């Protein structure tokens, strides 16, 4: 089920009503758990079994881990959890990719190998809930947390529908304690939660799907080489589209959870106002970058074992991060490019420790960051290296005389949205959304909320899946 669908509206109203009933807390949690399974099954019912499997395996692995009296036993339980979780993820997400690459390599070695046809369906949100269950066993292994008291709380942590299929990627210590005591939203939490959901749906349904997707598709799904303007506008459009799509999902998820009285983690903090790439990754998909930092970068050695190891850890983490997004070499290059950006930034910071940018230099560095992030997005969106090269070539002036492709209205709307987004990010760069809202006059706030809600109503249209569902 996706947030921008009519069925979700009905589902959410029913869940809210059930949650407001005077049932015992345990019954309410059972309701939420069942609702979360329905939420997931509404996409493809059989795949709920996979979700159960992932949940049960990590539950028992964590229990075994906690009860183990020897270090090797702890390690064995942890490895069991990691291997099974990553095994399931690899089969469903990377099966095709691995076979394709094996066939290609065999071909290079002169061997002709024809694998049997397979039709593996990628379960929606598998990368998100696999990372959530893994963090449970890994936190217990790293002695950062103890196992949950009961299976219901743990299962609800994995399955809780607002974050289930596209995050924010929650850690057990963030969510399990919230299930321990009865939770019910206050009236203001409910109202603010609805306001956040409106904002998220506005970003997704109106901006990302309504205004930006057609522009991006026209260039990135086309065959002809676009001109300079078209290539840049489509790439900038994609940077806005993916933000509105994913941040829109996150903010809707946070709002939905808040309506039920729960708190989810921040996942975005105005990333297009970032100055530098360390700053960007502290603002973009925060829960994923923090997960990769805690469970990949630090275990690989982090920055405590010399420069060479640090750069290796950085690059390996970002490449894995790229691969997490999709089983394609274009995602690997996207991750590698960000790893390279981070490495260069780190090198420069070490060389110029004395340097503190002023306002103008800060703005220039912010602009440079934004441009380089956009260049990386080309690999993220393009379906092949050929297409990426075509678009990048156009962005760097190789097809100055190409026939125009995008209508003027596409250029205009995209630039208005991108400009508005960047300005909004810059103006709120050192604030939370809540702090920014506090300073807005109630009349202005009412007008903004009205405009967004009305735009969502009159945009309607086919409900498109969120881009991050495929990850």
């Amino acid at each position, binding site marked *: 089920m*996706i947030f921008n*669908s*009519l*069925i979700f509206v009905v589902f959410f109203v029913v869940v809210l009503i059930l949650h407001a009933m005077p049932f015992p807390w345990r019954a309410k949690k059972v309701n939420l758990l069942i609702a979360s399974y329905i939420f997931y099954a*509404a*996409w493809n019912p059989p795949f709920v079994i996979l979700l159960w499997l992932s949940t049960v395996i990590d539950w028992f692995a964590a229990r075994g881990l906690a009860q183990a009296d020897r270090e090797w036993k702890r390690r064995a339980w942890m490895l069991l959890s990691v291997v099974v979780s990553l095994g399931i993820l690899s089969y469903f997400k990377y099966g095709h990719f691995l076979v394709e690459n094996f066939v290609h390599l065999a071909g290079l070695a002169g061997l002709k190998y024809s694998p049997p046809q397979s039709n593996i369906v990628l379960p929606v949100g598998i990368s998100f809930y696999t990372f959530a269950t893994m963090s449970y066993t890994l936190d217990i292994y790293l002695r*950062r*947390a*103890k*196992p*949950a*008291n009961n299976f219901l*709380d743990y299962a609800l942590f994995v399955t809780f529908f607002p974050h289930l299929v596209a995050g924010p990627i929650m850690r*057990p*210590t*963030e*969510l399990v304690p*919230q299930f*321990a005591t009865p939770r019910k939203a206050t*009236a*203001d939490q409910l*109202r*603010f939660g609805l*306001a956040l959901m409106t904002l998220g749906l506005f970003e997704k349904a109106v901006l990302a799907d309504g*205004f930006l997707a*057609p522009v991006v598709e026209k260039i990135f799904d086309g065959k002809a080489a676009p001109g300079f303007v078209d290539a840049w506008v489509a790439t900038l459009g994609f940077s806005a589209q993916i933000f509105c799509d994913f941040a829109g999902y996150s903010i809707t998820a*946070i709002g939905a959870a808040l309506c039920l009285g729960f708190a*989810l*983690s*921040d996942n975005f903090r105005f990333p297009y106002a970032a100055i530098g790439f360390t700053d960007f*990754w*502290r*603002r973009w998909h*925060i829960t994923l*970058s*923090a*997960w990769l*930092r805690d469970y990949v970068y630090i275990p690989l050695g982090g920055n405590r074992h010399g420069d060479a190891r640090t750069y290796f850890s950085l690059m390996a983490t970002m490449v894995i991060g790229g691969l997490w997004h999709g089983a394609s070499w274009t995602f690997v290059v996207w991750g590698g490019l960000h790893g390279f950006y981070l490495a260069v930034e780190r090198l420069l910071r070490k060389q110029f420790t004395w340097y503190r940018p002023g306002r103008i230099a800060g703005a220039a560095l912010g602009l440079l960051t934004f441009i380089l992030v956009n260049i990386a997005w080309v690999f993220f969106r393009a379906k092949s290296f050929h297409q990426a090269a075509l678009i990048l070539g156009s962005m760097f002036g190789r097809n100055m005389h190409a*026939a*125009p492709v*995008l*209508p*003027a*209205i596409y250029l205009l709307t995209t630039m208005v949205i991108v400009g508005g987004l960047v300005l909004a990010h810059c103006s709120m760069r050192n*604030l*939370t959304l*809540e*702090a920014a*809202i506090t300073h807005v006059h*109630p009349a202005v*706030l*009412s007008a903004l909320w*009205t405009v967004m*809600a*009305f735009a969502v*109503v*009159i*945009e*309607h*249209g086919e409900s498109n899946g969120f881009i991050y569902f495929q990850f």
Partner: protein
Amino acid sequence: MVSSISSSEEIDTQTIRHTLPSGLRLTAANRPGIAQPVPERDIPDQPWRVITLVVAILVTLLTSAWEWKMRTLELIPGDLGGGYDRWAELRREVDKRDVPVAIIGDSRILFDTDLGRAEQLTSVRPLQLAIAGGSGLPVLENMADDPHFKGLAIVGMAEVAYFETQYATVRPQKAIELSRWESPSKRGSFLIQQVLSHGLAMLDDNYRLSMLVFRLDRGWRPGVKGPYDEPWKTQETAPGGQTWIWRRLEHDRRLSGHTSYVWHEFFLPNPLDDESIKTVFVRTKIAVNKIRARGGDVVFVRPPSAHNLRTVEDKHLSRARGWDALLAYTQTKGIHIDDLPTVQNLTLPEESHLTHACATVFTDAYIRALAHRTPLLHLKPDAPPTLSTQDCVQQSIASSK
């Protein structure tokens, strides 16, 4: 903390918190390598009760005004549009029950068929499976591969769509894919939309916000065609699949003129080569044979198009090379508009599709003619009297006055 899960690093996070500027809060990005605590979600200090009330009232008022405006534009409640969900739901009928007659094809046979009239004549209401903007061939092949279908397939033919094996197959293939598997979530949303659309006219995809904004551009950038140059709303569809040309096109000259202009842009005279034509013949014959092997049959119908458009279509593929040759190759029967003398000069507001009234007349003519050509279609003894061009052209003139 009641739960046994707890953070052991809260002191560290408190330390970090003091270094943050006011208005910010910690995120996982600020807490490397430690257990992440329960997130904080503060509620901004605002009069939320009043704000929510104001927003609810304003959104209701604006939505009501919008609905009124959409109705003045002649959008109507109950119009389900031409989405894939609706088609997929109809296609699944074939698996659930015995379907004696199914209509396949493009927008012409879709808009130009009055299912009620067909039922009055034969007691059988055909299952409408034509898709606007799509070739009938992929759907014919799909039906041929479905052992449940043992009836009569009436295939509508606009040569530019039927013989086009690239772009015109995209929509049918998407629709077929959805009929094979549609998530419970998507089906549920469609059911809710069906219920809502009975009371709301504004749910039309062609009049959603982004589309209206995009259509403001009437060629601002030289050499580029955009949404303005694509077909706007052309159809209205009732539950059960009855589809007509959008009623506003019958009297709004500006709108029908625009649609007509778009058709001429689309239907460029681009002569087809013999190999492409032969491929379509072969694929059609295979499908026909499969359906016949189960006791069913396939017949073809060529609905009318206005003289100007027909000239362009004939340059693309003449009747002799397309229609006649296809029927001969596949050994099938068909009704061509040219062979129906009583229903010539029907009203085509935008040159490609008939008015409501003329669709009824055309349906009357082609169903009667087919009943003489195939044993799978029988005219009722008490069928209503025959209609002719005068029955709708006079009406059209009267309604436009």
